[in-house]
């Protein structure tokens, strides 16, 4: 077992840090206000930048007019003409310009950049710039994109499509044993990440003609690649430094490349540092959101309540440029069949172009959309079959040895039955269902129970991790300090803390002996982006293996002998460095044995492993105001080894809270391709008054190829909350609840529809 061999690395007298809730590494700086975020930094001679954006969703730029009464010669002004060719932000398709040139393709697309030392004046100047645009027809919905009356991207408004087939879906319907065929459409809305620190960077030109960017960001090497390509600079002349980052949730995965390019363009032209920090309204109206989706599900079930066929048409709205839509679509596609065994499956998936700002990465990354549809559909099927929803799922859970829709054989044990049992027991589900059925007829506020069962694949999809080939370095100093060098960022989830625990355990040293080097492309290797629930499981494992190599080197050279104490370890480091010079070891990602993905066939092991979960929501629906409240929530999950119980619990609670917002409150209102409610005043995220008690339970089944047995955890809680709540609302109201968010207005329409109609 991996776990046993790992334990043997340890000195017997050192307590294991993994599994303990040690204090957050940078926690002291955060609770005292000393932690430095990008807007807290002022450089000498620094200018403030602003962005002038398109007022219309699509059109030809006819001219840019600079209004009277401002000293325009004092401003640094950048337009598409100042952008080196090709004017592109590199990502997947390289279709997005840094600044719009001739044509704008979405509302709020950046067109002009301004910088000035006076922050108030530059804001006044932003309002004084007018962009004259001849409007072109725009595309405002998935339907309009598919109809193709107006083509806004490529030949057919389609960024990417996938087709997954297994067995023969079409022949199933006509079989004698088929008892139920059900065909329903589901929709999910856009969602704003709403990190409390808005996006921002500071860029400066360096004496050697290079660029340094400091910013609030998740993926330093994404920004590095975008700037190297845009400015045609060698890699060592571009330096990207991550500042303390006030939340990301995916929102600071790809967007910082664009804002960094803007700040760098201004800084190079001005010859002075430029700070470009968005205010809340700009951040909400201009940056990426979760992809809206529409999912049509057709299923066939036999007389015994066993799933026989699944036919899904899954569509996500990517907005005006491709950004990450193909990979969001891929994750959504692979998760669409849920944690069930389907003998016959067809998933047709498409990401389409519309005229809104591009949608992008957001915790869950396509899975919350397709799993909402499927888990709602499972309940509707169960009700139609007159089977209890738990019993129906139990008959169909995927098991060890069975094969997923994309051909992945589940090699590890999967025990969804046990997770569901624990969740139903912890929430007192069955007793409450019975009790509410008795009390609801006499009550204006009606109560209900709903649940969802689901999974989340950890790490990059398919061959992604192999392509990334992430690297982590660990080094020791003559003073015996252990330094972890990785580009993985601390964005609140606990990277610094868990990396310290893992390195300290691997080397048998104290937690405080470990230093996590600030992510800075001039100093750290590329350990890949901080996304996809991969930091602990994948990168953490590299931290362990690099640390283990350091220890092996110390022992090999005779500097260290086991058993040892933290103090003798320090002596060993001093001896080694004095005799041999610096000691630094790298670890590069190797795929676990037997894990293969075929990109061409879109088939194979989609993920190294999955986290599995069963979530239960208890809700109240006020039948006068149509408001829904979540009164209690139980989240049970199997996530491998829990490295840090408090951090892990915090990840689940925070994810559940964000997903309660997704289910009930967070409604992006689109008007002519533009977010009309780009304010915290009328885009409502959950407050301390809105959330129920959230009870979190972990099943720990160590994963042989994750750090100390860990699996990914960050995205999982986003996937199952909305369907659990929608299932509860449906149980209470008898309505279909096929769309989220379930705002009071939406629920009123649905509940009153039969009376009106």
């Amino acid at each position: 077992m991996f776990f046993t061999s790992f334990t043997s690395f340890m000195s017997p007298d050192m307590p294991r840090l993994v599994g303990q809730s040690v204090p957050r590494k940078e926690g002291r700086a955060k609770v005292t206000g000393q932690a430095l975020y990008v807007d807290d930094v002022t450089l000498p001679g620094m200018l403030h930048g602003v962005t002038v954006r398109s007022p219309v969703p699509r059109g030809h730029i006819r001219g840019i007019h600079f209004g009277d009464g401002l000293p325009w010669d004092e401003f640094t002004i950048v337009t598409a003409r100042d952008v080196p060719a090709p004017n592109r932000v590199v990502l997947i398709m390289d279709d997005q310009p840094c600044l719009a040139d001739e044509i704008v393709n979405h509302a709020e697309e950046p067109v002009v950049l301004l910088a000035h030392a006076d922050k108030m004046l530059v804001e006044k100047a932003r309002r004084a710039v007018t962009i004259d645009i001849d409007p072109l027809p725009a595309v405002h919905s998935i339907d309009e994109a598919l109809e193709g009356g107006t083509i806004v991207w490529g030949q057919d408004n389609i960024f990417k499509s996938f087709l997954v087939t297994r067995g023969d879906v079409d022949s199933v319907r006509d079989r004698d044993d088929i008892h139920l065929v059900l065909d329903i459409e589901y929709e999910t809305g856009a969602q704003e990440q709403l990190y409390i620190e808005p996006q921002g960077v500071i860029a400066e030109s360096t004496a050697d003609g290079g660029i340094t960017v400091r910013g609030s960001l998740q993926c330093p090497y994404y920004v590095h690649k975008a700037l190297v390509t845009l400015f045609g600079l060698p890699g060592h002349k571009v330096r990207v430094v991550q500042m303390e980052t006030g939340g990301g949730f995916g929102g600071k995965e790809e967007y910082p490349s664009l804002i960094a390019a803007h700040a760098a363009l201004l800084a190079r032209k001005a010859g002075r540092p430029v700070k470009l920090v968005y205010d809340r309204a700009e951040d909400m109206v201009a940056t990426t959101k979760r992809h809206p989706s529409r999912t049509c599900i057709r299923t066939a079930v036999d007389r015994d309540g066993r799933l026989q066929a699944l036919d899904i048409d899954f569509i996500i709205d990517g907005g005006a440029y491709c950004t990450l839509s193909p990979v969001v679509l891929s994750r959504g596609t692979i998760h669409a069949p849920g944690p069930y065994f389907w003998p016959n499956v067809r998933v047709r998936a498409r990401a389409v172009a519309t005229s809104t700002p591009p949608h992008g990465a957001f915790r869950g990354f396509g899975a919350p959309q397709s799993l909402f549809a499927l888990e709602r559909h499972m309940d509707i099927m169960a009700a139609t079959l007159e089977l209890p929803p738990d019993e129906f799922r139990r008959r169909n859970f995927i098991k060890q040895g069975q094969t997923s829709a994309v051909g992945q054989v589940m090699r590890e044990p999967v025990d969804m039955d046990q997770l569901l049992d624990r969740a139903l027991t912890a929430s007192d589900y069955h007793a409450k269902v019975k009790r509410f059925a008795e009390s609801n007829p006499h009550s204006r506020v009606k109560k209900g129970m709903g649940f969802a069962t689901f999974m989340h694949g950890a790490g990059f999809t398919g061959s992604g991790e192999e392509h990334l080939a992430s690297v982590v370095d660990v080094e020791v100093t003559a003073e015996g300090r252990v330094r972890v060098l990785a580009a993985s960022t601390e964005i609140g989830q606990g990277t610094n803390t868990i990396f310290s625990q893992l390195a300290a355990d691997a080397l048998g040293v104290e937690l405080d002996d470990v230093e996590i080097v600030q992510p800075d492309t001039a100093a750290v290797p590329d350990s890949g982006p901080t996304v996809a629930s991969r930091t602990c499981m994948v990168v953490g494992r590299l931290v362990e293996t690099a640390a283990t190599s350091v220890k092996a080197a110390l022992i090999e050279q005779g500097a260290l002998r086991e058993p040892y104490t933290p103090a003798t370890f320090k002596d060993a480091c001093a001896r080694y460095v004095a005799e041999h010079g610096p000691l630094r070891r790298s670890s590069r990602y190797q795929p676990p044995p037997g894990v293969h993905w075929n990109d061409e066939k879109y088939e194979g092991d989609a993920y190294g492993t999955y986290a599995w979960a069963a979530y239960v929501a208890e809700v109240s629906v006020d039948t006068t105001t149509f408001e829904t409240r979540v009164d209690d929530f139980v989240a049970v999950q199997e996530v491998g080894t829990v490295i840090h119980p408090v951090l892990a619990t915090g990840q689940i609670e925070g994810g559940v809270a964000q997903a309660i917002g997704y289910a009930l409150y967070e409604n992006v209102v689109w008007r002519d391709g533009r977010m009309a409610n780009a304010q915290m005043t009328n885009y409502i995220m959950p407050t301390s008054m809105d959330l129920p008690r959230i009870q979190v339970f972990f099943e720990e089944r160590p994963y042989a190829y994750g750090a100390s047995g860990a699996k990914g955890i960050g995205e999982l809680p986003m996937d199952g909350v909305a369907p659990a709540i929608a299932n509860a609302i449906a149980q209470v109201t008898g309505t279909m609840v096929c769309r989220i968010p379930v705002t009071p207005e939406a629920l009123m329409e649905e509940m009153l529809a039969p009376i009106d109609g």
Partner: protein
Amino acid sequence: MADSLHVEVRLRVNGRDTVVRAHPMARLLDVLRQDLHLTGTKEGCGEGECGACSVLLNGELVNSCLLPVLQADAASITTIEGLSQAAGELHAVQQAFLTHGGAQCGICTPGMVLAAVSLLERHPNPTEAEIRSGLAGNLCRCTGYMRIFEAVLQARRRGQALESSA
């Protein structure tokens, strides 16, 4: 803005008297962050919704993004930098946030800690409902608030333990 419009404003910030020259309508937030370099007070929304800019003004929790500095003339202000009694020591609420996972990304933390301090001053022995309503003006996107509630409860217990041992 032209200097002629600026006025002198007297503030007592974290126990120290100071005079700043500022436009009378300048936001207290900007004066704290830019003129006094107290960047622990954060801007999350600029419209009084998120509470990241919370400070204590004469003991009351206020959103410093909504307060013209002239209105703070002669006031006593506590920011996160002035919370602990001695250098290098943490206030009981800060310690509880650190121990119980009340801070994740940290951007709401200074405001949230001050809101918790204000809450415990008004309700030394708060119920869960009082904790929830006391923190309702401070948004956190990371934690789902559960660890923050726990931190407030633990800070209260710690405070009580200190009192009874005194």
